[in-house]
């Protein structure tokens, strides 16, 4: 190694500059804070000092201004703006698209690192920690490596159909972000068929994945594709049923209205419908090809499933879409079941989109946790679980919720009583139904005792893991 690149000398050389940069950033940060404080104290932001930090209201004001509906415009400007109604559509569409694209791009860069570090932590190893501080630059290094690599096309592959899937699979991965409500007035596609839109978009990826597997001219790829298609069309049913349950309860298919409903009633749908939350979450992991349901690309069985033959950045696109979809599902769980941007009144003090982002992060953490902990289901187990277990239970839950929704419309007492009763009834139903249906299908722990995790206890269990960690 040459002296110029020696890390210790380099660090000593760069330390004064880093200090100066840090000091400058501190000064800029302090100046910004002083400026904001001066703005607030001067009274220029009275009546809207809270709105000032709320992007949703900012967007709404921009739309009103572009539509020529605000009072403080000169007359000629209002006339021009009123005659160009398309302007507000185009500007807000570009704004939203830029926002979604930059958010998804940023998330893909950061969360790959987060996921690998977390799984490393869970599995008692370190995870990427070489490139950059704490290994933070690892995703960028990986992306550069993937771009440099040659993309091979196998002999006998259908060239056109081999080229298309990495692109096609990205489209639903971006479109799914459109109806997600980040804050009040901050939804890119606030349509009243939002839930149906999600199901429709979710079903599009199936075809792209099948194309990838079929066109590769590879048995492993075709097997992976067939598994994916079979699994996706099986799990779309419990997924749609759980979404339908939410729609029946809230009486709307508009995502922002569902969040609004939870905010008004001060209750999370996940509390009211624990079984539906589980059905949605589990079916989503199947649609996402994530552990415990990643049989479509089970490394130990069929190499890499449908993307066996994809190399370079084409593989990178598949990988990125998988991660992006995981974040999108986290966002859906947060919006539909965990109250979205509402947090029992706290959203008045913290910008709602930050509340929502925190919830998305929490759900994503659970997804990573599952991936780091659980083994993989067999194909037949997975199919049987969807058809024999999730679908009947989801149907019964749907019927129950239909009755509850009808009662709720006629309820005139305290909301707390009604929702408390629903939580009790649905919680009891979840316990009884899950247990009872499992017994009906032949689950009998007293006859076949569950296996203890022998290997873990054999090598010392949690304590040994702790010792390894601290060493």
């Amino acid at each position, binding site marked *: 190694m040459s002296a110029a690149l020696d890390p210790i000398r380099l660090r000593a050389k760069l330390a004064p500059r880093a200090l100066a940069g840090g000091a400058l950033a501190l000064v800029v940060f302090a100046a910004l804070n002083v400026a904001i404080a001066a703005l607030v104290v001067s009274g220029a932001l009275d009546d809207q000092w809270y709105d000032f930090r709320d992007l949703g209201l900012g967007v709404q004001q921009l739309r009103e201004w572009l539509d020529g509906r605000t009072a403080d415009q000169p007359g000629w400007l209002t006339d021009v703006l009123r005659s160009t109604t398309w302007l507000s559509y185009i500007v807000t569409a570009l704004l939203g698209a830029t926002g979604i694209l930059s958010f998804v791009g940023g998330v893909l860069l950061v969360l790959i690192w987060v996921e690998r570090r977390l799984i490393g932590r869970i599995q008692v190893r370190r995870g990427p920690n070489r490139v950059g501080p704490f290994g933070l630059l690892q995703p960028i290094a990986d992306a550069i490596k993937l771009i440099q690599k040659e993309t091979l096309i196998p002999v006998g592959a259908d060239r056109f*159909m081999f080229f298309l899937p990495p692109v096609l699979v990205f489209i639903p991965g971006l479109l799914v972000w459109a109806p997600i409500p980040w804050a009040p007035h901050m939804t890119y596609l606030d349509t*009243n*068929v939002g839930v*149906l839109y999600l199901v*429709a978009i979710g079903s599009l990826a199936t*075809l792209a994945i099948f*194309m990838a597997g079929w066109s590769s001219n590879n048995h492993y790829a075709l097997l992976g594709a067939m598994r994916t298609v079979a699994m996706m*069309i099986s799990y779309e049913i419990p997924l749609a049923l759980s979404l339908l349950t939410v729609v029946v309860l809230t009486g709307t298919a508009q995502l922002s209205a569902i969040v609004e409903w939870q905010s008004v009633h001060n209750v999370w749908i996940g509390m009211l419908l624990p079984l539906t939350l589980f059905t949605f979450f589990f079916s989503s992991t199947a649609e996402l090809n994530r552990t415990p349901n990643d049989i479509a690309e089970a490394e130990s069985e069929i190499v890499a499933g449908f993307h066996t033959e994809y190399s370079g950045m084409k593989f990178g696109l598949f990988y990125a879409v998988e991660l992006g979809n995981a974040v999108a599902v986290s966002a859906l769980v947060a919006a539909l079941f965990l109250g979205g941007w509402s947090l029992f009144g706290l959203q008045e003090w913290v910008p709602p989109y930050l509340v929502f982002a925190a919830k998305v992060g929490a759900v994503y953490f659970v997804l990573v946790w599952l991936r780091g902990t659980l083994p993989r289901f067999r194909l037949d187990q997975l199919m049987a679980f969807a058809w024999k277990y999730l679908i009947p239970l989801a149907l019964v839950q749907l019927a129950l919720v239909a009755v509850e929704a009808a009662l709720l419309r006629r309820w005139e007492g305290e909301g707390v009583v009604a929702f408390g009763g629903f939580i009790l009834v649905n919680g009891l139903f979840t316990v009884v139904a899950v247990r009872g249906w499992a017994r009906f299908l032949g689950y009998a722990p007293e006859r076949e005792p569950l296996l203890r995790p022998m290997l873990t206890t054999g090598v010392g269990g949690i304590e040994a893991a702790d010792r390894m960690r601290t060493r």
Partner: protein
Amino acid sequence: MESTGVIIGFWALAGLTVGSAALVFVARNLLHAVLALVLSFMGMAGLFLTLSADFIAMAQILIYAGAISVLLVFAVMLTPLASRDNGNSLFALPGLAIGGAFALLLMFIAVDVDWPELRGAALAERAFDDTIAAIGRSLIDRYAFAFQLASALLLVALIGAIALVREDSER
């Protein structure tokens, strides 16, 4: 159709729909034909969107582009020699004749029927913005019997399919 955007959208989507439908016939590879068919379905969904029929558009994508296409793909995969050259079909001429006759019949009906056309104020008066609620209401109100009949039919088909493929475990 008043704004230029809708007119441009209509012609683009119509071109996409008809063009990819033509590709379905021309494609020599059966799977390419399936993909072109999906593209045609998507174009149709776009046409529904230009008519502000958002529920129908989403249902079109969900059912046709999402489910029916997967069904076709399964049929192609499970059929031996499905991806062979599909160039010379025995039924090209009868198919053309029947298809042409059917298209003529549809065109005749479309031209002949006195469609209720609404414009301007009359259109605004009849407008409702929540198509999903309107469709749901008429499904359980006016068309309740047809709705029940269709669901009973689907249930029977489901049970029939399970009964057909079920292995006889008693043997």
